[in-house]
């Protein structure tokens, strides 16, 4: 069974600065997908970024980028130029190919200080 671990229950960052959230996972699969979701106080889960394991290039979406280290089974999220609206719970998630469930980490609560 796959497991996803987020070792940072809480993180804080100053507005306009950069923060990195960590995620490690365990799987015996060679092909899979990784995601970062954010859950603001409204509780609506919002997809931030997605990474296919077969792609060596790290995914980037505007101010959000990942550092995907397949051998180390590590998948960190970097948020650049942090904004107050980035404050939320961030979840790392794993999915096998061909659909299937998302396995989530425990989450990291990000606070952005003005």
């Amino acid at each position, binding site marked *: 069974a796959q497991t996803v671990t987020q070792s940072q229950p809480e993180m804080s960052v100053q507005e306009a600065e950069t923060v990195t959230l960590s995620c490690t996972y365990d799987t015996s699969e060679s*092909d899979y*997908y990784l*995601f970062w*979701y954010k859950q603001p106080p*409204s*509780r*609506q*889960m*919002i*997809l931030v970024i*997605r990474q296919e394991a077969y792609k060596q290039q790290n995914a980037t979406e505007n101010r959000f980028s990942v550092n995907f280290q397949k051998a180390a089974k590590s998948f960190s999220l970097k948020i650049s130029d942090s904004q107050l609206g980035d404050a939320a719970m961030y*979840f790392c998630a794993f*999915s*096998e*190919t*061909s*659909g*299937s*469930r*998302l*396995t*989530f*980490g*425990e*989450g990291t609560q990000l606070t952005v200080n003005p």
Partner: protein
Amino acid sequence: EAGVTQSPTHLIKTRGQQATLRCSPISGHTSVYWYQQALGLGLQFLLWYDEGEERNRGNFPPRFSGRQFPNYSSELNVNALELEDSALYLCASSLRPGQGVTYEQYFGPGTRLTVT
């Protein structure tokens, strides 16, 4: 484009009763997923439906069940409610998974179920 919708927003039930939660996927999405987010337990996968059939099930007792209708909307039923069933229930939808392809899951706002 309308997102995933869920109803009701809040639901209060008494232990032993049944709860029915509803989800409408994004237009064009055939897969619907249900997750439970209980305090202290994180997000746990419950059920996955595609094309009207249950495709996968999480580690939950049989009193958690559901179905998917021909229009791809879905219902989650929880029978014989227990206090620990109190949680936020999230529904997500995606395009039909293909061989070797996983599509993003888009989530609804959730239904907050409180069991007293």
